[in-house]
């Protein structure tokens, strides 16, 4: 799932980059806003190119309305693929809770059509090909939907520049993006991009009825080998009062991961 998060970031970088050269919002007509949004996003898509492969550990903290929380720990591995037709390959390996230790989800992202996904169930040592069409369902009980995690390829949205806005003490460009893939739970998303760091600070998610249902914020940005990565993502669900935090640590790039480490036959002996 991580690569999609990263590609989301990539899209956002480029958006911010172009925003620096943006005209005054008053002068921008709707058509220009679409063109500007697209160009920003397109530029962003290539701006993070070259990371090759990466790994990171993450702790997922699920908090309910009453404030009680449960934790999952996982590792994300990503292999970059530079193509207009296919996205990156990624694998998420769960280490806690202990009863799902070793469970892994492998994803080969595609731009059009569903991603290819397999799940490895260690108790039976079974690899199962699974459908990735369930976009709006909750990812492992969290407030992240599958699509928040797996549908972040550049080509899966249309873009439109909206406005310049303050975000904390920084300046942000706000971009609207609309999912073009099937089965999305969203009508649109608003993305806040930090104009200086070119990183996304916040996303507002709007459901099919147009209500603002969830907010995602990023924190703790740091540059690793030229690539911006964050240490925290927080998703708040305004409808049910629940929230999910993803705390990242141990970002690594150029770890020597190869294509064969992202094949379904490799899931059994992930190391």
């Amino acid at each position, binding site marked *: 799932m991580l690569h999609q998060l990263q590609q989301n970031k990539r899209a956002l970088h480029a958006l911010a980059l172009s925003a620096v050269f943006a005209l005054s919002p008053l002068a921008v007509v709707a058509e220009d806003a679409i063109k500007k949004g697209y160009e920003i996003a397109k530029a962003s898509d290539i701006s993070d190119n070259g990371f090759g492969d990466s790994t990171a550990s993450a702790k997922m903290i699920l908090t309910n309305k009453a404030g009680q929380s449960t934790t999952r720990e996982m590792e994300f591995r990503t292999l970059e693929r530079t193509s207009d037709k296919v996205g990156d390959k990624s694998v998420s390996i769960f280490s806690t809770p202990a009863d799902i230790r070793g469970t892994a989800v492998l994803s080969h992202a595609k731009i059009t059509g569903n991603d290819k996904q397999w799940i490895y169930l260690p108790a*039976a*040592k079974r690899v199962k090909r699974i459908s990735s069409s369930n976009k709006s369902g*909750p990812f*492992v009980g969290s407030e992240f939907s599958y699509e928040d995690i797996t549908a972040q390829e550049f080509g899966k949205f249309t873009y439109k520049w909206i406005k310049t806005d303050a975000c904390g003490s920084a300046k942000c460009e706000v971009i609207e993006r609309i999912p073009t893939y099937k089965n999305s739970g969203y009508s649109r998303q608003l993305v806040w991009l930090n104009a200086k760091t070119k990183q996304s600070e916040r996303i507002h998610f709007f459901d099919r009825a147009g209500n603002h249902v969830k907010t995602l914020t990023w924190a703790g940005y740091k540059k690793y080998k030229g690539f911006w990565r964050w240490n925290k993502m927080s998703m708040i669900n305004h409808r049910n009062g629940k929230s999910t935090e993803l705390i990242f640590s141990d970002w690594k790039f150029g770890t020597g991961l190869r294509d064969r480490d992202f094949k379904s036959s490799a899931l059994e002996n992930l*190391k």
Partner: protein
Amino acid sequence: MTPVLRCLMVMSATLATPAAQADSIEFSGYVGAELSYFPNTGLYPGQLADLQYSLVLAPEINWQSDSGDTQVNILAFGRIESADTKRQHLDLREGYIHHEFDDFTALIGINKVFWGVAESRRLVDIINQVDQLEYTDNDARLGQPMLTISTDQDWGALSGFLMTGFRKLKFAGTEGRLRLPYPVLDTAVFSHRSREKAKDYALRYYNSFGDFDLGLSTFNGTSREAVLKPVGGNSFQPNYSRITQTGLDLQYTGDATLLKLEAISRSGDNFKHFEAMVAGLEYTIYQIADTGSDLGLIAEYNYDNRGANAPLTIFQKDAFVGGRWVANDSEDTSAILGMLIDLDDGTRSFQGEFKRRLGNGLSLNLQFRALGYSNPANAQHGFRRDDFFAVSLKHFF
């Protein structure tokens, strides 16, 4: 055998290096308590009355080299049992060294291998012997000693298996439930001279073509299934044939629909060649009733044309219908319910399971199995008084 020897040498050399760091060794596993309740008294004399308690322990050790290229996995499973001493058993499920070479991987030791796609029957799956004593776990298998060489290339994944140390079926004791009318002898009869020392060979190819995942397999060795022949009028003796089996498993993955097919063709020393298949679909309704949970509807058709000289099966012409509910919550709650109907004689069996994590490391499992109707001619008829309800608590560490 030269490449095999060479990889064994590399593997042992890697292991012998004093690089083993404490932090690359991981201990994990679970300890559990299980209680089964049989509402009906047993059909046969000596069978336990209604309650069966056990303790289970499954410790696991994993080690990997600094490079990650070499791994050692050890996984044992043991059960301590209240009534049936034969069900009290210890098995090394895994105990192997795995090494990644540049273009292939090698594994030597005891391992468990899963093949197939269907839900109601594991038809093409043949590497491991079924652990029949674990009647509360359909996926329980005995560890199989093997040497495996695998490669995963652009044209697909190919694995070769060389196996020795045949694992015989295990049967419940006189006190046990879900047993045959008479005890089964520990000594077995084999159709070939080298008996249980005979080696087994298997080859499997797998590849994913767009929405299709295809597996082709072949096995030559001792049958995992046995013909149970009456001996002396008060016991059974397992008879194992030398067999050759070719198998195919295929899955189409659509948006909400999975289509599945498994088929085999098997010939053996002591029976007429036969074919079998299981075909079906799984349709998932996502986010039912506006909740985050999913409901998968499963329907499968089983066909098996084996003759009377072949080991018994209950899947000659049977339909399976079932549902799998997954809550997608933080406790990973799920439930599965299924019914198998014999389309020839009307025998119907039901099975259900509910799973939920109770707290950190603790998980609850409830299940039942019941025979709704059994035709006296059906192999399941002997289990007609063995309906059960089981509850288990496992603590994972």
